[in-house]
């Protein structure tokens, strides 16, 4: 894929994914298995109001999203991908009031799995807020069609429907807006 195609995918991932759009993710650089993204600081994404530090969960979302774009940037053709696992070490609190960046590198790809490393930082990737190591499944859709998740999975596995002794109030999860 060309750099323009990678940028188009990154833009689609930032604007088409409601969570990424809500957080204001922006791709600064993409190509050759590397992606650099930015999340602008705002009060709504703080984790500890006493310190004003961005929530660890936002860092998780940023790192996951950035790792995913690095995988797309390493692939010859676009395909569905899914995070298998994500390990994050938090080195220090993010500086309150500052935008946060993440840089991810997809350093190895097999036929079915992509391996990615990433860091989150304000200015210097060598002085990270957090570091991540992730594995992604490639071609994860396995032929699933758009809207597939509205239906229950075909094989429900070993579920026994174990009684938990309290009503957990299952949501009907209605949503029609898949923009």
């Amino acid at each position, binding site marked *: 894929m060309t750099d323009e195609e990678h940028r188009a995918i990154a833009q689609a991932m930032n604007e088409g994914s409601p969570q990424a759009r809500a957080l204001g993710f922006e791709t600064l650089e993409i190509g050759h298995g590397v992606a650099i993204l930015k999340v602008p600081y705002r009060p709504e994404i703080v984790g500890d109001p006493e310190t004003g530090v961005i*929530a660890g969960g936002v860092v*998780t*979302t940023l790192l996951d999203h950035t790792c995913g774009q690095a995988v797309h940037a390493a692939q010859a053709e676009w395909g569905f991908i899914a995070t298998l696992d994500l390990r994050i070490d938090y080195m220090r609190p993010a500086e309150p009031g500052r935008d946060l960046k993440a840089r991810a590198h997809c350093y190895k790809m097999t036929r079915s799995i992509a391996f990615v490393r990433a860091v989150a930082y304000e200015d210097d990737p060598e002085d990270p807020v957090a570091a991540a190591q992730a594995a992604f499944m490639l071609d994860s859709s396995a032929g699933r069609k758009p809207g597939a998740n509205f239906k229950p999975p075909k094989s429900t596995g070993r579920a026994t429907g174990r009684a938990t002794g309290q009503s957990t109030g299952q949501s009907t999860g209605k949503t029609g807006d898949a923009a």
Partner: protein
Amino acid sequence: MSDAPMNAQDRLNAVLASIPYARFIGVRAELAGDEMTAVLPFSDVIVGNPILPAIHGGVLGAFMEMTALAQLSIFEPLKRQPRTIDVSIEYLRSGRPLTTFARAEIKKVGRRIANVHVEAWQEQRANPIAALRGHFLLTSAED
């Protein structure tokens, strides 16, 4: 658990209400005795893949991390939030457009470090969609 359940529920509500990002994605929690279930209602804003659609993996990770922090907050009163040292997240199934639940199990609380395991599920508890293991740095209220 030294406090009465009501106090614990109030403390739990206060903890979640004080985390802006928890409000942003809509996390709440329910206590049944000493057992806490965190609840993430489905909303469009938490979607990562709009085509399937599937909940963003980062949101699921964030939800489970908050579940661990909330569980620690009801386990013992802390002066301020525990700091996350590391988390390891496993994604087992895609998050469908349904309510997601999570429960945390505190495996060990030492003087400074707590180890917590969290599991998230949707329709069936036996079919978790994601799991998290994490270490948290504690600052007790006495310090």
